[in-house]
């Protein structure tokens, strides 16, 4: 069986309000799946539900057939990790300590190393001894992505990683997503920026009212770029 992170009829609730209404999609390994849609439609909730951060869920999330369940750290140990939108670094630890602490060796010999992280994000290399909290927002975003990759996840979820970043940083983020795919990591990308999504994405799902309203392959998305953009604009 091919490695896959599968959302099977997932519903999620905060208190009594239902945010996700039976969402189903697959994320194959070594691919980038983009969740697109207007704000408040359930994209972030999908990611949070994967980490066990909503009050209640129905339906199933499975990783290679095993149900993703239990406390957050256990899900992370199973191989799913989340880089949330607020990009919080361990502010009083140095950049190097932030990376060291995240390392979760798999013993496969294929582990992502700090040196490789520095290759993708040279800026981090220059800042190794600096307290992470004193870096710019873009640098901190690089650090949280690098930190997530050092945990050697099977699946990495990025919530609007380029929001508010300058174009040079956006390039580095795109490169890290490519690198993750090359290493067999499945990526779920929640993104407002259509250009970035189109440059890295393999599959595109429009999330609307807690459901997948439409899905595109890469070719379909490239062919109907305008339609896609229209769908993501508030009329």
């Amino acid at each position: 069986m091919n490695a896959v992170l599968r959302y099977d009829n997932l519903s999620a609730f905060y208190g009594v309000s239902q945010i996700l209404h039976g969402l189903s999609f697959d994320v194959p390994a070594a691919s980038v799946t983009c969740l697109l849609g207007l704000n408040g439609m359930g994209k972030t909730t999908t990611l949070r539900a994967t980490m066990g951060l909503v009050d209640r869920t129905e339906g199933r999330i499975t990783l290679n057939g095993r149900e993703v369940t239990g406390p957050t750290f256990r899900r992370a140990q199973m191989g799913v990790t989340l880089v949330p939108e607020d990009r919080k670094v361990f502010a009083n630890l140095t950049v190097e300590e932030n990376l060291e602490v995240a390392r979760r060796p798999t013993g496969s010999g294929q582990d992502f190393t700090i040196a490789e992280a520095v290759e993708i994000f040279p800026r981090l290399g220059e800042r190794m001894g600096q307290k992470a909290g004193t870096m710019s927002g873009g640098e901190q975003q690089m650090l949280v992505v690098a930190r997530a990759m050092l945990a050697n996840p099977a699946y990495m979820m990025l919530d609007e990683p380029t929001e508010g970043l300058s174009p040079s940083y956006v390039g580095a983020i795109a490169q890290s997503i490519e690198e993750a795919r090359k290493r067999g990591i499945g990526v779920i990308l929640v993104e407002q920026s259509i250009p970035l999504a189109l440059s890295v994405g393999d599959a595109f799902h429009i999330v609307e009212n807690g459901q997948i309203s439409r899905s595109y392959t890469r070719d379909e998305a490239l062919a109907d770029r305008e339609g896609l953009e229209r769908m993501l604009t508030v009329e």
Partner: protein
Amino acid sequence: MTGATLSERRTRSRGGLIGLAIVALAGIVLPFASAGQPFLLMLASHALIAAILALSLDMLTGNTGLLSFGHAAWFGFGSYVAGLLSKSASSDIVVLSLLTLAATVLVAGVIGAVLVRQIGKTFAILTLALSQIMFAIVFVFSDITGGEDGLQGIPMATFLGMQIVSPTTWYAILLVALLLALAGALHLRRSPLGRAWLAIRENGERARFIGMNVNKLKLMSYVISAGLASLAGVLFVLFNGATSPDLLHWLESGKVLMYVVLGGVGTIFGPVIGAVVFTLAEHYVSTFTDAWLIYFGALFVLIVIVAPGGLFGGAARIAERLSARKSGRRTAQ
């Protein structure tokens, strides 16, 4: 870049060694300086015990950010367990330390497992409740514990069959104990476990995202901290020849917290300095005035406002700024 980091790491570990050497040197010089003044040596011995106790709280609050208002619970627990065991089992200081440590790990493990699930204020309040419960237990079982009179008549401690009599020997034992505790704390800080603790202190949720079992790691910190506090209790009861419920009182817990905040939370050396300064100052100031706590209260407030990093944190910040200026000049050249 890697070179810079490595050299920086070496500097930091050298900083730890230098700190240890300074503490050791100051500790060794004191008995000579205090020759002919036995009281001074005793005061210094109490300061050393206070320093170990302060370091134990820093192992919790400084590492994981968990605030304990009842840390004296484990200080008192250690003193009572060791005191009772010394009357029935053995008077050997090592045997008593190991037995008490085992008892503490067991009890603190169970209690800690409940406590670390609580966050912030709830945790702090529960630690306060714990120390008051232990305080009450002493009175409930006063036929064993001596109640308000405390546990008296502790047999003289032995080490390898020899009685520990001389105050200088006691002082040496306490100094070695503090140095070992400091070395252990420094080692832990640099270990992966220490880094993980700091990550939790910074942001527990992100630590979970990268797969850390936050509750388990917090529990380890709690048990290690309680264990060291109980060892301070063992040393206290054997050195002092008696223990009393005062050790468990929240006032004692407040004092320990003051040592740590005064010295600098999470700085390892800071709380040790805080404890020594506080213990000495407490003695000397209280000979001038009965209202010494007012002055300490004012000092405490001043430090929290002016130097939130405490004495050590403030000094480190000044040193950092100076060395940054120096290295800045070096790069400029």
